[in-house]
């Protein structure tokens, strides 16, 4: 019997309907403006895809889970949390703690980036999570593409391979002011749905992310010049490169290194610029971040337009696992400087393995 923890953030997405661009701290305002909750409906649509027997859902009472399960006609669930009528982020976190105690195989949540952060705060990367998208913003990479995909993952929970998925923190106050400011908040683990049409035909190397990261790191360790300064972006792929070089880097930050020395851990833009004034040549190694595949402009904003100009776009190396490439058919570059963005051509080479690269389209 597979056990799935299921929690709905009932107010997720409501801010969007009434022009609030998010519901963080504005739930009451959204309701006052007449927003209608739809998260439960979205969750129910995903759950309706589930037919497999042998799944037990653990959930919260009422609109935080129970209602969606009932409306999807799912009989086997157990209510393990009883949140109050007016729910907050703490109720999501409390439910996740309970799910961990109950040793569930997967936590399924319905919400947006804010909900993903709440779940991540409790769960981290200890067990897999999956988001049913219902928020205003979904820049994090933990969401299923549609309810059908979510349904298919739920059916096979516990059997599917896992991959890293960035949880992004979007500054809502800035966002409402028209500025998209994000930072990498954490890296969760999500089950990867193998292509439903071609399960047996998917080439082997695209399935195993850990193997892919090692292969990328093996290649990068071979081609990196030990006398050159490299700026390593955030994430587990760049972390694998550092690991291969025998050094440890900050997972969520940007580090500068030379040879096998970390010159500046968790460096900010100013530090990077001042380091670059002392170097004849340098390189930037980054991995696309988030569900949309941003090479720059999301998650690693320390690597600013000025830093990139200083290094030169010729010296930018993009690395990514094949699984991640598969999910992001196009990459995005948003350095905040449109002229610099335009210098990147229509496509970019992405290192995906040992002496293996892919040509990926860039969308502006």
């Amino acid at each position, binding site marked *: 019997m597979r056990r799935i923890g299921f929690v709905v953030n009932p107010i997720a997405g409501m801010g969007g309907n009434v022009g609030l661009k998010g519901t963080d701290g504005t739930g009451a305002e959204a309701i006052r403006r007449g927003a209608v909750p739809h998260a439960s409906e979205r969750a129910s649509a995903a759950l309706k895809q589930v037919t497999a027997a042998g799944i037990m859902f653990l959930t919260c009472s009422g609109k935080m889970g129970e209602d969606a399960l009932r409306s999807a006609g799912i009989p086997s669930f157990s209510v393990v949390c009883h949140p109050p009528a007016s729910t907050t982020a703490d109720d999501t976190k409390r439910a996740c703690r309970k799910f961990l105690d109950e040793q569930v195989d997967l936590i399924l949540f319905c919400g947006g980036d804010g909900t993903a952060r709440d779940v991540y705060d409790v769960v981290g990367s200890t067990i897999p999570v999956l988001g049913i998208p219902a928020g205003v913003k979904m820049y994090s990479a933990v969401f299923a593409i549609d309810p059908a995909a979510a349904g298919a993952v739920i059916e096979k929970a516990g059997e599917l391979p896992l991959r890293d998925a960035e949880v992004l923190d979007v500054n809502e106050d800035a966002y409402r002011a028209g500025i998209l400011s994000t930072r990498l908040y954490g890296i969760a683990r999500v089950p990867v749905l193998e*292509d439903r049409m071609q399960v*047996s035909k998917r*080439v082997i190397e*695209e399935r195993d992310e850990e*193997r892919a990261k090692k292969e990328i790191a093996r290649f990068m360790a071979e*081609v990196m010049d030990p006398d050159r300064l490299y700026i390593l972006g955030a994430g587990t792929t760049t972390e694998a490169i550092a690991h291969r070089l025998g050094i440890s880097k900050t997972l969520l930050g940007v580090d500068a290194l030379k040879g096998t020395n970390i010159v500046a851990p968790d460096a900010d833009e100013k530090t990077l610029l001042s380091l670059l004034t002392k170097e004849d040549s340098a390189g930037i190694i980054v991995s696309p971040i988030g569900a949309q595949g941003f090479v720059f402009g999301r998650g690693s904003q320390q690597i600013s337009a000025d830093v990139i100009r200083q290094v030169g776009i010729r010296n930018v190396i993009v690395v990514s696992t094949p699984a991640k490439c*598969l999910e992001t058919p196009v990459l995005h570059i948003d350095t905040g400087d449109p002229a610099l963005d335009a210098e990147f051509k229509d496509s970019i080479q992405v290192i995906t393995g040992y002496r*293996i690269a*892919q040509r990926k389209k860039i969308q502006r």
Partner: protein
Amino acid sequence: MRFAYMHTKILLDEGEMPKRWYNILADLSTPMDPPLHPATKKPVGPDDLSAIFPMELIRQEMSPDRFIDIPAEVREVLSLWRPSPLYRAKRLEQHLKTPAKIYYKWEGVSPPGSHKPNTSVPQAYYNMKAGVERIATETGAGQWGSALAFATMLYDMECTIYMVRSSYAQKPYRKSMMHVWGAECIPSPSTKTKSGQAVLEKDPETPGSLGIAISEAVEDAATHQNTNYALGSVLNHVCLHQTVIGQECREQLAKVDDYPDVVIGCVGGGSNFAGISFPFAGDKMTGKHKDVDLIAVEPASCPTLTKGLFTYDFGDVAGLTPLLKMFTLGHDFIPPSIHAGGLRYHGDSPIVSKLVNDKVMRAVAYHQSEVFEAAQTFARTEGIIVAPETSHAVKAAIDQALECRKTGNAKTILFNCSGHGNFDMSAYDAFYAKQLVDYEYPDEMIKQSLARIPKI
């Protein structure tokens, strides 16, 4: 024009099938660098090869004779599908609005569906004559494996085929064909050989490669008294056997008073390109047709001729084969799992390599999605759904024809349509699902790292 109307197919009678193979070694301006023994690094002699090849094939590998007779028994088998038709691609020309004339040699008419039995039949025949009971080989996409299974069946021999693991999963029906013809097919790397075990120990999840599968087959042959090895490409005698293709083309074009300006073939190990181009390369080198443009087409993910080094390297991963002077990406390179599995080879035919290096031939490389785009155009004009390998040649032919549209030049373009894609429909499905990955070889970065290695 001898004919009042434009032919769609140009056919030869069975009696017009070539009676001799054309050996291009006789027409090279400078001699080939010899293969070297993997241990002694001295040139290999016939005795070094006799453990895994029959003497007649060793003789052909090294022969200086311009022509070598095709045994009557072999010609009798080849007549099952040869001479193969030469098509004028009228519909494709109209679609492209090109002044060029496009011809394609259709090798998909053989029972296994590709050019491969042109050499598997004579190889099996000479082994049978030498009293060999079993042949071990490798296969990438399965074209060669199924062709050798077919040939060994004809001569009542056993056949063991090491099939590259990623293709084994991608192309289950090729494996089924081998079974129908009575052969054994094993995914490579396997635990049956020491070379396979070594690879699996290092990397249990490896997709495998032709280089690994060759190691396994060579080891199998070397460690079994009754077993020989057969290679589906690369070697001189394999290219030799394929020259029936180009010789027929020359005859067929002569029937419509034509001669190609451009000859195109896809290249993995190089044999189908060698087959169509060597007779024309001979004409070029001997001054009969100095201007014929010979184009080898390879995948951008495994661009041996366009990005590799021209140097001595092993033909396999384990270093069991002789060292061959060829373009190579390094025998330890495992190319990504493109659908054109037959083109996933780190090296290339030494003769093709030399001719590219000598500028008698040239090479181009394409990404995976653009070649499938071309294959779709071909299927929707000429009807044939080509193998992913062949789609590389189709792409180059279309590009040449489009260039003619720009320049107004009415060139005669000939390409080798080496095999059908009837067992590769999952690759086409991936194309339509927009899931084809445009792999490429990061040659700039590799060059920079090689530049730092101290010169000895």
